[in-house]
């Protein structure tokens, strides 16, 4: 299966985000820091086949959120998201 066929959506990151933020974020609107598009997390492109979880804007492909889980620490990069509302 190609990468294009394996890309998922924000529903797939829902459990991880629930664990990290304590809130279900799948319906939370986010604004892309690249193009300004506003979409719920469920409508973002999610790549899970990599050494972390990478969430991209579906319109401009900008990386909005990157999450890496180590054995004892988690790193979250939200630079590509200019706003999340929940």
């Amino acid at each position, binding site marked *: 299966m190609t990468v294009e066929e394996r890309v998922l959506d924000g529903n797939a990151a829902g459990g991880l985000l629930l664990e990290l933020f304590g809130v279900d974020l799948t319906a939370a609107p986010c604004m892309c820091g690249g193009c300004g598009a506003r979409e719920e997390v469920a409508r973002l492109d999610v790549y899970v086949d*990599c050494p972390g979880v990478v969430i991209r804007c579906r319109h401009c492909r900008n990386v909005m959120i990157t999450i890496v889980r180590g054995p004892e620490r988690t790193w979250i990069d939200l630079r590509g998201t200019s706003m999340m509302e929940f």
Partner: protein
Amino acid sequence: MPIISRGFRGRRQEGPPDRVPPGQYLTDDFPVLSAGPTPHTSLEEWTFTIEGGAEPVSWSWEELQALPREEVTVDIHCVTKWSKLDTAWEGVSVDTLLDAVEHDKEYALAYSDGGYTTNLPIEDLTDGKAWVAYRYGGEPLEAEHGGPARLLVPHLYFWKSAKWVRGLQLLDEDEPGFWEQNGYHLYGDPWREQRYWGD
């Protein structure tokens, strides 16, 4: 303490400890790991550039193909815990490319189509340790696996072997690339299990 599920093993294979670094499992397939859509660059547009030396040096696809080609068989180790032994690649040694550049730098940042970056000491790119590889398993490197050409640096975790590589920026200081900015180790030696910051 997580609950153990009776009889669950997963699909892992252990491997010989002198070939498989700590914490790794063997795989027979070649998993495609990607953090973004697969770039597709035509060979007509493709160039490889080394910047940061006395002046930038660039090769077109034809020029790269004309350089001495090496065949290497190496083991590769992904930080997501799979290792694959005896993978066969063909490409140009990074030594050959760096020989064309006058520089006094110590570090490099490899950059790729699609925006991916990864950093390495130049020392880890020389003396037969790294290639710009464009054939895998006897065939042209597929786009999904980084084609037309990727960096190949097998002695470090495979995230350092940047897919869709288009060049190196030579730098005075080590500058973290994509995964290194997000918790992954700046150097990434699988034999010392350097997966994350502080390992």
